[in-house]
């Protein structure tokens, strides 16, 4: 049995940020990351980040991961363990994990769940053909391993992920035939969209995929797209077909909340936040005492917000554990201010709505 002050589940931007703050406060911290690589989605991000200096704006994602890890490297009270999947959370306070192939039990005094989100899928005939990928898979192939996923790709989804990954595909030498978006407008930042347009990539709004076809051995060979009417129904006669060897699906993320459900956290469904999210207080505590959340598991946002919410969760957990830092209150307030400013623009309206729905007080 591993006894530890704080267990952090996930070594993405949120989990690493939480570990830094809790570690700074003096807590013994164990960070478990299921991948063999640390940094979560950051390591696949080759673009310069938005936000402000505090969230490392203009740095590229993989560089930010290195910065956070270098900071943690200096801390003796923080252990970061890759290849370690948290398996379950039980109501007797025991968490189990597979750590480098071994089954382990952990009894933490507090936990920050920073499991992130998983990609949503889409239903259309042929949706399971080889050559149809989640956007994250394509990023893994090209940005993490330097492997070209395909030659000609159609991207489904013009949110930030769809737009960014399309651009990254072009940087990897892949021809992006079109970006297709069901909504009448582009969901992602328009600067991302313009980057693609000036490379000659069309973006079809109010369009979706009708079906995908391919031979048994090679997988995907063509996709047929069609226009949607105002009720999101395909308009017959509007079909057109592209011969492509890959289709990339970027239709949103859904918080990976299994552990929170298992431990009995109260949850609520928020479409703008991507799915079920936990009720939490302002300082990232869930309905379960000692269980905190950080990053996308609390509702899907940008990596910059994930880092700040991670810091906030780390400080709150350390405080709950009885660790003190001279400026704890000011640090928490600074996190709250940063989150408020990141969420305050017109692109943050849906996030503000989600937070309003899920934010409560437990005292």
């Amino acid at each position, binding site marked *: 049995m591993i006894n530890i002050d704080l267990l952090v589940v996930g070594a993405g931007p949120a989990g690493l940020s939480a570990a830094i703050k809790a570690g700074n406060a003096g807590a013994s911290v164990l960070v478990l990351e299921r991948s063999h690589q640390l940094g979560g989605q950051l390591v696949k991000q080759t673009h310069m980040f938005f936000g402000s200096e505090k969230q490392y704006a203009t740095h590229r994602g993989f560089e930010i991961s290195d910065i956070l890890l270098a900071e943690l490297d200096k801390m003796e009270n923080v252990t970061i363990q890759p290849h370690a*999947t948290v*398996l379950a959370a039980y109501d007797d306070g025991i968490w189990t994990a597979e750590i480098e192939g071994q089954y382990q039990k952990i009894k933490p005094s507090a936990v920050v769940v920073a499991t992130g989100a998983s990609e*949503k899928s889409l*239903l259309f005939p*042929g949706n*399971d053909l080889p050559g149809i990928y989640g956007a994250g898979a394509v990023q893994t192939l090209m940005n993490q391993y330097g492997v070209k996923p395909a030659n000609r790709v159609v991207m489904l989804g013009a949110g930030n992920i769809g737009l960014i990954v399309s651009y990254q595909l072009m940087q990897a030498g892949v021809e992006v035939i079109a970006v297709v978006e069901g909504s009448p407008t582009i969901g992602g930042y328009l600067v991302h969209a313009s980057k693609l347009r000036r490379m000659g990539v069309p973006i079809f709004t109010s369009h979706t995929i009708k079906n995908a076809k391919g031979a048994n051995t090679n997988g995907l060979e063509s996709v047929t797209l069609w226009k949607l009417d105002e009720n999101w129904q395909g308009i017959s006669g509007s079909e057109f077909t592209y011969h492509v060897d890959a289709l990339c699906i970027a239709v949103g993320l859904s918080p990976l909340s299994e552990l929170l459900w298992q431990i009995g956290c109260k949850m609520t469904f928020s479409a703008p936040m991507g799915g079920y999210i936990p009720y939490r207080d302002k300082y990232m505590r869930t309905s379960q005492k000692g269980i905190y959340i950080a990053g996308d598991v609390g509702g899907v946002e940008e990596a910059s917000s994930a880092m700040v919410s991670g810091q906030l969760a780390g400080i709150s957990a350390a405080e709950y554990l009885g660790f003190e830092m001279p400026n704890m209150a000011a640090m928490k307030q600074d996190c709250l201010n940063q989150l408020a400013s990141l969420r305050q623009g017109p692109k943050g309206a849906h996030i503000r709505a989600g937070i309003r729905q899920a934010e409560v007080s437990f005292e």
Partner: protein
Amino acid sequence: MLEKTGVPTETQIDSAFPNETRLNEGPVAVIECFQPIPCNPCAMACPRQAILPFADINDVPVMDNDKCNGCGLCVMKCPGLAIIVVDINWSETKALIKLPYEFRPLPQKGQILHALDREGHPIANAEVINVIVPANKTPVISIAVDKDLIKKVRNICIPEDNDSIVCRCSDITVADIQSFIAQGYTSVDELKRITRLGMGACQGRTCIPLVMRELSTALKKPISELTSGTHRPIVKSMKLGDVAAYGGKS
């Protein structure tokens, strides 16, 4: 026009339909037979002489709408498949149309079909209310459609099974899910148990959000009013031997 396109004009269709008063009084046959040809089985089929006896076999049929009770016998007897029965007050919101359909597979009671217009375009969904298969092999299918479509719907087509994959682990398609929802399995947990959906190695991460969307559409309820189902440990599969090796050491 009909001679050029095979599709009757609106004027022709209006002339085939009884007036509104008669429509409101109950089921009635509508005969879209506009060209004199040597053919009279409809008049012979009607037990109530609602289709007036022909003087000449080349007559186009003429209805006495007051005698017609919408039984549909003429529907299955017309070699031109020119007759339907319309019951505009079948329910509060829906009209019933009985129409002939000579293809296989036959629709099933309760199935949702595409209702087609006179040019074969799908214009709405229609529920199959009844299927009668007479000895002469011209089945009569009763479908429920929105009332304002009675002059438009003239055919049906069975939608292709949607074989989009919902659950990769257990190979379950959206058609499977829709069929179980139609049978009354109306929550994620029920669907999981009856189909094994979400019980595979992925632990439901891919399929559960898709199923919730299907449930939401079918039940006409927002997802926030559905329940997400149980979340059982463990989140990633682990070998029995590796778990057995646990010695409680720290």
